[in-house]
């Protein structure tokens, strides 16, 4: 009989565990946290000690800036569980500037920012929430009397790396939706020379942010990304391919209306406009709010919030396909398509009638010899 033994857990440094205990984090919680992070980052278990070291030794200075955002990403951070926001703020990072949670205000707050900028030049992590308006000299968003564009260039330009959290910072998001009244752009477009990692989502999943930060602390570099600057560990797979309802999709079992029997039984939401088949995100695997739920689990289709331009390309959110440009709202792709084929058929039908009554066009058909 082959011996089945549980995978050997790597021992963590005793002193390190004691230091965490002194901060009120139990060993069990700490080890669990490291293991969860390691798994989120898709790393083998042998990395757990390295992760534990990383979050122990280097408190990373962070400057968190919000521009044309809704503070939703900050709120997401407040819901972080592994680690909690208290652990993040007190133990994991030093949050040098964050308008929503910092105690200081006004010019003292701005001073904290410039102090951090000088002291940790080239070493701090910049986190940006919200898009950057560029129209009309940047008047659509100012902080401390200066424009978002000026601030983001200064802060991100001198950072070790920048993380763009949420769809607005990563891709322009809602302010950049057509007709983009304020000329909103993404962080990468605002500071092209900066090293920017995109963590889109509306809002982002805080677990992906903590995993990214720890990856940075552990390996001193940002994680590998896809063509859109999104880390593969969180955006490498489509929602549809990891969806808990995929079996219903394959079986042809669909919720036809909200609240119908199929909907209550957890059938696939494809026909109610779910955008899981075109969205790359790890929602089905990590979920939200400590893994309690995610949109599809709660009976509402995905709206594609991790994709660039999703407000325009993924809407209408309750239809499979986007609006055909230039056609009224009620004209779906299929109505237009059927119309096209029908129009062709009618046109050629008319042509056939015309041809049947056409005489003397000197064609071969006129030369046919009729047999008795």
């Amino acid at each position, binding site marked *: 009989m082959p011996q089945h033994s549980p995978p050997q857990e790597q021992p963590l440094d005793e002193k390190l565990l004691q230091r965490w205990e002194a901060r009120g984090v139990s060993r069990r919680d700490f080890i669990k946290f490291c293991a969860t992070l390691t798994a989120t980052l898709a790393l083998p278990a042998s990395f757990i000690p390295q992760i534990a070291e990383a979050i122990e030794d280097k408190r990373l200075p962070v400057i968190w800036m919000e521009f044309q955002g809704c503070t939703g990403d900050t709120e997401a951070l407040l819901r972080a569980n592994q680690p909690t926001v208290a652990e993040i703020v007190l133990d994991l990072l030093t949050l040098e500037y964050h308008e929503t949670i910092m105690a200081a205000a006004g010019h003292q707050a701005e001073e904290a920012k410039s102090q951090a900028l000088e002291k940790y030049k080239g070493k701090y992590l910049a986190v940006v929430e919200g898009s950057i308006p560029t129209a009309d000299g940047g008047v659509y968003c100012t902080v401390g009397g200066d424009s978002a564009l000026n601030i983001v260039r200064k802060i991100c330009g001198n950072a070790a790396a920048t993380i763009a959290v949420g769809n607005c910072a990563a891709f322009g998001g809602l302010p950049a939706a057509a007709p983009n009244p304020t000329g909103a752009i993404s962080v990468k477009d605002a500071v092209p020379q900066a090293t920017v990692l995109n963590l889109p989502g509306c809002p982002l999943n805080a677990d992906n942010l903590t995993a990214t930060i720890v990856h940075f602390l552990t390996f001193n570099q940002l994680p590998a990304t896809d063509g859109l600057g999104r880390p593969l560990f969180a955006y490498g797979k489509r929602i549809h391919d990891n969806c808990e309802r995929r079996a219903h999709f394959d079986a042809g079992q669909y919720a036809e209306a909200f609240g119908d029997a199929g909907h209550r039984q957890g059938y696939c939401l494809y026909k109610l406009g779910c955008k899981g088949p*075109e969205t790359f995100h790890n929602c089905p695997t990590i979920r939200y709010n400590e893994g309690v739920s995610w949109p599809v689990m709660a009976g509402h289709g995905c709206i594609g919030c991790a994709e660039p331009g999703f407000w325009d390309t*993924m809407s209408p959110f309750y239809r499979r396909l986007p609006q055909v440009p230039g056609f009224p709202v009620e004209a779906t792709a299929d109505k237009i398509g059927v119309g096209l084929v029908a129009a062709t058929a009618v046109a050629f039908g008319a042509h*056939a009638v015309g041809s049947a009554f056409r005489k003397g*066009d000197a064609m071969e058909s006129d030369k046919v010899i009729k047999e008795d």
Partner: protein
Amino acid sequence: MLEIRYVWEWPVRITHWINASSVILLSATGLFIAHPFAIIGVETMAWARLVHIVVAYAFLCSVLFRFYWMLVGNQHASWRAFIPWLTAEGRRNFVKMLRYYTFTGKKISYEVGHNPVAALAYLGIFALFIFQIVSGFALYGQYAPEGFWGGLFVILNPLVSSQYLRLSHHMVMWMLLGFLVNHLYSAWLMDVKERNGTMSGIFSGYRYIEPEDL
């Protein structure tokens, strides 16, 4: 004296019929994928997608083979046959044909192969085929961005959102179905009017040509 000529070589006929059946099968399964429903005991969507993908590969091979044959086949199969306006005679015949179709002229240009208006339509159809293959495999490849198709079309993602790719794939299907109506009618019309084996030619390869007419 009526001649019987071997016009459509076997690769032309084979790829024509593979393409035709592919368009029909791909459209049928594609429409099902867009508007699926359940049949008890059948994994309907899984089957629809399987058929769609397998037929897509057959269609890809067929279109590629037809492109190869454009280089090595006879003059009617050649790529030159699809761009009639290269020669002055081609342009003249194109106008003549267009006038016949629009009831503004009586004479047609007698051709051994495609008439010039039809040739132009086929050029467009091949362009749509390429579009459907690229958009289709790009969408298919999303299940594995690190895989062959995902890697091949990685550049498309930032350029076109996958929803608009999907929308175009869907709309081009309707255009191909529209073409199907047109194609069947035109073939029937010419078969009736020219009596030269337009319809049977694509089965047998032979057409009946009156050399004096050319």
